[in-house]
């Protein structure tokens, strides 16, 4: 063990101490190990004797742990690699995982890669965390966290650094917060050692290019998208409208869908994700969630083709689609508000033609609450207030880690979203007049 700890390590320890308090949910299970200018072989050895060390060490951390009972055997579920651009982001990742008790990974490797930096090629910090399972206090979930800083040329060969320290034979996910460098060789290397890529499409610098890349990457590995996960509450609520048979018959007759998403007002305090502990605080592509939701409904309901695109003010647009029996008027529009993080949906309104009139299905969100309403053909109008909280990033991540490897529903929604976006782009280029979208982007589904 080194005599002195780096500032980052001390910060991490401070977080632990703060969260830990004896018997609380968070415990640092083994003494933190840290070495600068180390090698992969040393890290491997250290990881190999990690849990043994916990039982024999005499430090405070370890003896406390012996009192509370360390698991003598562990069940491993998956590896998680997190790539970040700098050590400040690495701290945020570590903090997010610790404060929320990330559920799934058995070994998390946080990679800080800087190929321009000089100095020691490799610094490593290893700590182990055990969480008490709230529902059964005797159970502990443990994971190991390895924070690696890779500099210089080594940073261009990350898979060689990472591969030896993964737990063998376990599925490996790579989480790339922010805008992933889709074209860089390092990205490809890490994709090669992973089974699943987790991104947040609302962080993409170029939403269309990023989503297009995802549609090809999904041939290679599973894709998790935090923007998609953020929609799950909306999807449940929208699906719920049509669970009752009396409303389900409206589904084929939908003829209008308006999706609004939060965009900053420009004055007033802009809500950043950091308000909710996120690793990437700013939202680069606020339209991502809205367009994925539109893609989801369009692909689920087999809306196959669209005709015209009209750009709307502020980057929104209007598309005409062919639904089952009706033409569908789809609008995606920003709504200026500082109440919500940019990109979050503010409302979804669906309208269908009924036998005697129109039916409307409405979800309007206002901070942590939403109004859900149904009006149809003179039948009972249902109006309810529900809670709709923004899930925290670690919860989104956890859900995406635990999700199914290939998600055909997401794939289809993504495909449709790309078609819509491409159409919207071409409309932007052509000016305010409605245009007929080029034939190549008309096919949906897939």
């Amino acid at each position, binding site marked *: 063990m080194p005599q002195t700890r780096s500032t980052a390590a001390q910060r991490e320890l401070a977080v632990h101490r703060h969260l830990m308090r004896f018997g609380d949910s968070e415990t640092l299970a083994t003494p933190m190990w840290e070495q600068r200018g180390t090698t992969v072989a040393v890290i491997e050895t250290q990881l190999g004797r990690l849990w043994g060390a916990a039982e024999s060490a005499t430090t405070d951390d370890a003896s406390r742990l012996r009192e509370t009972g360390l*698991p*003598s*055997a*562990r*069940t491993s*579920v998956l590896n998680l690699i997190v790539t970040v651009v700098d050590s400040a982001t690495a701290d945020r990742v570590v903090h997010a995982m610790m404060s929320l*008790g990330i*559920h*799934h990974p058995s070994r998390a490797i946080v990679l800080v890669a800087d190929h321009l930096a000089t100095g020691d090629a490799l610094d490593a910090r290893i700590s182990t965390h055990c*969480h008490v*399972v709230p*529902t*059964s206090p005797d*159970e*502990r*979930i*443990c994971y190991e966290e390895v924070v690696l800083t890779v500099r210089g040329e080594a940073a261009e060969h990350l898979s060689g650094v990472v591969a030896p320290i993964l737990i063998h034979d376990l599925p490996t996910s790579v989480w790339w917060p922010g805008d992933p460098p889709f074209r860089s060789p390092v990205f490809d290397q890490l994709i090669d050692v992973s089974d699943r890529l987790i991104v947040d499409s609302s962080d993409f610098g170029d939403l269309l290019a990023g989503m297009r890349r995802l549609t090809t990457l999904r041939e290679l590995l599973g894709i998790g998208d935090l923007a998609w996960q953020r929609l*799950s509450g909306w*999807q*449940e609520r*929208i*699906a*719920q409208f*049509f*669970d*009752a*048979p*009396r409303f*389900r*018959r409206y*589904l*084929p007759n939908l003829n209008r869908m308006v999706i609004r998403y939060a965009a900053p007002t420009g004055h007033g305090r802009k809500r950043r994700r950091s308000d909710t502990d996120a690793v990437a605080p700013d939202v680069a592509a606020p339209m991502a969630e809205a367009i994925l939701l539109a893609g989801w*409904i369009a692909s*689920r*309901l*087999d809306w*196959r*083709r669209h*005709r*015209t695109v009209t750009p709307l003010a502020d980057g929104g647009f209007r598309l005409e689609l*062919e639904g*089952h029996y009706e033409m569908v008027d789809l609008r995606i529009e920003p709504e200026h508000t500082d109440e919500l993080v940019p990109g979050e949906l503010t409302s979804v309104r669906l309208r269908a033609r009924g036998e005697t009139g129109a039916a409307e299905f409405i979800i309007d969100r206002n901070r942590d*609450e939403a109004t*859900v309403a149904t009006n149809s053909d003179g039948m*009972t109008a*249902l109006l*309810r*207030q*529900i*809670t709709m909280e923004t899930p925290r990033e670690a919860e989104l991540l956890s859900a995406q880690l*635990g999700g199914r490897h290939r*998600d*055909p*529903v*997401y794939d289809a929604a993504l495909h449709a979203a790309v078609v819509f976006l491409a159409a919207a782009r071409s409309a932007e280029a052509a000016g305010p*007049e*409605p*245009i*007929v979208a080029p*034939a190549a982007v008309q096919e949906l589904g897939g």
Partner: protein
Amino acid sequence: MAHATPITLPPVLPEPATVAPGDGARHLANPLREGLRLERIPEPCTMIICGATGDLTQRKLGPALYNLMLGGFLPPEFTVVGFARRDLSDDDFRDHLRNGIDAYSRNRPAKRSIWESFSGGIHYHRGEFHDPASYEAMAKLLDRIDRDRGTAGNRLFYLAVPPVLYPEIVKQLGAAGLSADGERRVDGKRGWVRVIVEKPFGYDLASARKLNREIRESFGEDQIYRIDHYLGKETVQNLAVFRFGNGLFEPIWNRRYIDSVQITVAETVGVEGRGEFYDQTGALRDIVQNHALQLMSMFAMEPPVEFAASDLRDEKLKVLRAVHPMALADVARNTIRGQYVSGWVEGQKMRSYRDEPEVDPESLTETYVAIKLAIDSWRWAGVPFYLRTGKGMPTRVTEIAVQFRRAPLALFARTGASQIDPNILAIRIQPDEGILLRFGAKVPGQGLQIRSVNMDFRYGSSFAVDSPDAYETLLLDAMIGDPSLFTRDDEVERAWEILDPILRAWHEDQGGPLHFYAAGSWGPPAADDMLERDRRAWRRP
């Protein structure tokens, strides 16, 4: 507008999928549900709890419904009607449920916003169970709820009352026209009607048959959901995944590799205020007839053709049919019954069973039972199944332990390691749900010493996911119309056929004596002797 080229229309769309009543589990009628976390959502319905002021409602049903609501598993139209004798208002009943949630729910206390939308759909109906007028009034109330809340005539009755009341309630429901569902209904409505019946299903074969007959006078078998909450537990469902989702285990799941199987359902507690009920029931009826035999049939069944209700229950029934009921003369050799006397459990002094309130001071009721059963099938011939259950045991545990055959040759005998312990696979149902595998390993160092080590998989430490309570799973299944995890009439009757000779032998005093054991011990020594005769020993889980 730019020049529009003609576009070919897609082929004619398929008709929207229709759902057969009672088969909601496997069909997705709502295309938006595909791939969502909640693929199965029940249709809007009303759940009527008969015996709504009792313990079960407060401890289990209320919290289960609340958690389902919290998880978004129930449609907003979902409505609860409490039906009981006590004079309560709607608000009183809501308070009763809410107190139960605050005290017993796995998510507690109740969240205000969720509770407010949930409680709006909670009603109370006061009435006598034997009075036709209360059912007529209830029918009117349910019709009004259908109209106001859009529950479309779908009704789930839950009999949370002592079993003596089952026949009366189902008869009255039938007479009031409340049991007819679908096209059988005279009022022209097409909703489904189901009834959930709590165990015990009878107290012997004759009474179980009678009860089944009585319920079927009002309800069809496809409407009857006999609840055995053990089947709702995650680990029990995982038993099927463990066997049929892994290529490794099924090939060795037979008499060639398995030496014997032990099923243990141990409780530390005594009768806990249920003295009167328990003294008439005993361990064999209370645990073996349902939980233990269900566990055994899930463990031993052949792979079903499809993982669907009828196939699953057919396979379970086949296991029970392959268990031959004992001849009266064999009961003494293959069963041990015991009753606890005072002792120490978990550091607490526990009084004798006969000193419990409402228990006959000369009671001969068994609080412990150990049985050796044989399944006469190609797969299991010659493999004994040892079932035991008891109160006042040293620990609370439910597990199935498989003992494999020993290695055929004592290869290491010369080197000091004599007989190697057999491999054990233990499937723990509760607490600490998980799977443990024991095998021999060399002790490091010179020489060849072999010691058994455990490889331990725990659900809790692998998936930090809060498992739903068994009642949540089962209530949702019943609302969706998936009876896989409920017991069918023929299963219940077959289980009684297996146990009837034992009950009769005990009753006629031919089944061996009642042994006494100290609370806090693993049952009477006679139970150990029973296994020792077979050169085996009970596990100490």
